[in-house]
């Protein structure tokens, strides 16, 4: 039975490994995209503009309150249409189709971004206001304050929360398998179907996910320790 997991011509080992690589690729891209959405969302929520706060509020409420699967279906069935509609505004009449990878990254990134928004907003607000005032009193410009005072500390405060978001993102990529992208879940599903060994392959998938989440837990712990190296602990 273990032969089925081997790397030989009769084994699914190679494909499963490829699936794991695809899962990591989608997760990392979606997480990074989510950080971009999250930073934009957080700055919108903290801005004085009522319209911007409103838009960001609707974004986080809807995406966090609606099942991930529904968001994925929205982009899977409607993503290409939306992109073409945008293209038409800019005068491009041709046919555009998003591939499964970009749809997956976009969908999971959108979800990840909603959670990142809240994490980053909380972290920005955790930076003591006195420090901003002090920096301003030193004559720093807004950009310099952002670069030297706000961003480094925000990163440190946001790290634990972002670790949680990463775990969520990693697990959400399993849902992308409904779009037939060959990540862990999809490969296992295909393998389970053609070998009639569903238990073996879904257990393997579970082990692969456990491996990924465990490694990332350790990585984030290290990163936190590094980020807090200058902080005195009680």
């Amino acid at each position, binding site marked *: 039975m273990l032969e089925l997991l081997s790397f030989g011509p009769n084994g699914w080992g190679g494909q499963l490994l490829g699936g794991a690589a695809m899962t990591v690729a989608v997760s990392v891209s979606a997480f990074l995209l989510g950080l971009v959405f999250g930073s934009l969302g957080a700055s919108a929520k903290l801005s004085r503009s009522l319209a911007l706060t409103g838009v960001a509020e609707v974004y986080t409420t809807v995406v966090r*309150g609606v*099942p991930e699967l529904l968001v994925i279906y929205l982009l899977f069935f409607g993503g290409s249409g939306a992109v073409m509609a945008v293209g038409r505004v800019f005068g491009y009449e041709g046919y555009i189709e998003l591939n499964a990878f970009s749809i997956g990254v976009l969908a999971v990134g959108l979800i990840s971004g909603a959670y990142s928004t809240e994490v980053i907003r909380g972290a920005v607000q955790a930076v003591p206001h006195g420090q901003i005032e002090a920096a301003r009193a030193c004559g720093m410009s807004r950009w310099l304050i952002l670069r030297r005072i706000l961003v480094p500390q925000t990163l440190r405060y946001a790290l634990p929360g972002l670790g949680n978001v990463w775990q969520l993102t990693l*697990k959400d990529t399993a849902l992308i398998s409904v779009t037939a992208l060959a990540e862990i879940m999809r490969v296992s599903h295909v393998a389970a179907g053609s070998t009639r060994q*569903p238990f073996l392959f*879904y257990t393997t998938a579970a082990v692969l*996910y456990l491996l990924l989440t*465990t490694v990332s837990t350790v990585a984030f712990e290290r990163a936190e320790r590094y980020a807090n190296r200058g902080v005195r602990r009680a």
Partner: protein
Amino acid sequence: MNWELMWDSVPTLLRGVPVTLQLVGLALLFGAGVAFAVALLRLYGNRVTERLMAAYVFVFRGTPLLVQIFLIYYGMGQFELVRSSVLWIYLREPFWCAILALTLNTGAYTSEILRGAILSVPQGQIEAARACGMSRTLLFRRIVMPVAIRQMLPAYGNEVILMVKASSLASTITLLEITGIARKIIAQSFAVFEVFIVAGSIYLLLNFVASRLIRYAEWRMTPYLRARG
């Protein structure tokens, strides 16, 4: 935007609400039982139960729910032992497989919430109860549990919302709850946005009601924090 189609899809999608509510309700009910047992075994059990329960929580929190659902629905039926057992009446139904997966999943998360809440009960209160001569079970029933449940409610509220959303995965094993019906309508009519708006609104409404209920429970349990009228 096709308003007519959107309007027509409302009653169809609403037909999925009872299934979603059943999935969420039963999973939360059974999950609470699992969480309670697991938290107690981790906190007051011996080293073996402690390790076993920690492993259970680790596995179910570290893998996607979709894997768990597929493992139970497709994986279990592979074994002759399971198929010939009495449990097969339940395990061959996608509904009960979904309930089982959701229960085990929420049980793992909730047990962590409950464990944290029990550990956060101030030591002074436990000492005081002991000084009053309470037995261990009485102390647990009258002091630890009420304080812990109050403490865990906000985090549990998040878990309830996660469960409402997680129930949508039942559609992947052919259950026609809200998301399953939404997918079917989309595949037939290609009215992606219209259906998304209606189905999404139903979920938002469910989650809004759920969070209100939890907040009400929190309010009921903290009379001492309210101003005396």
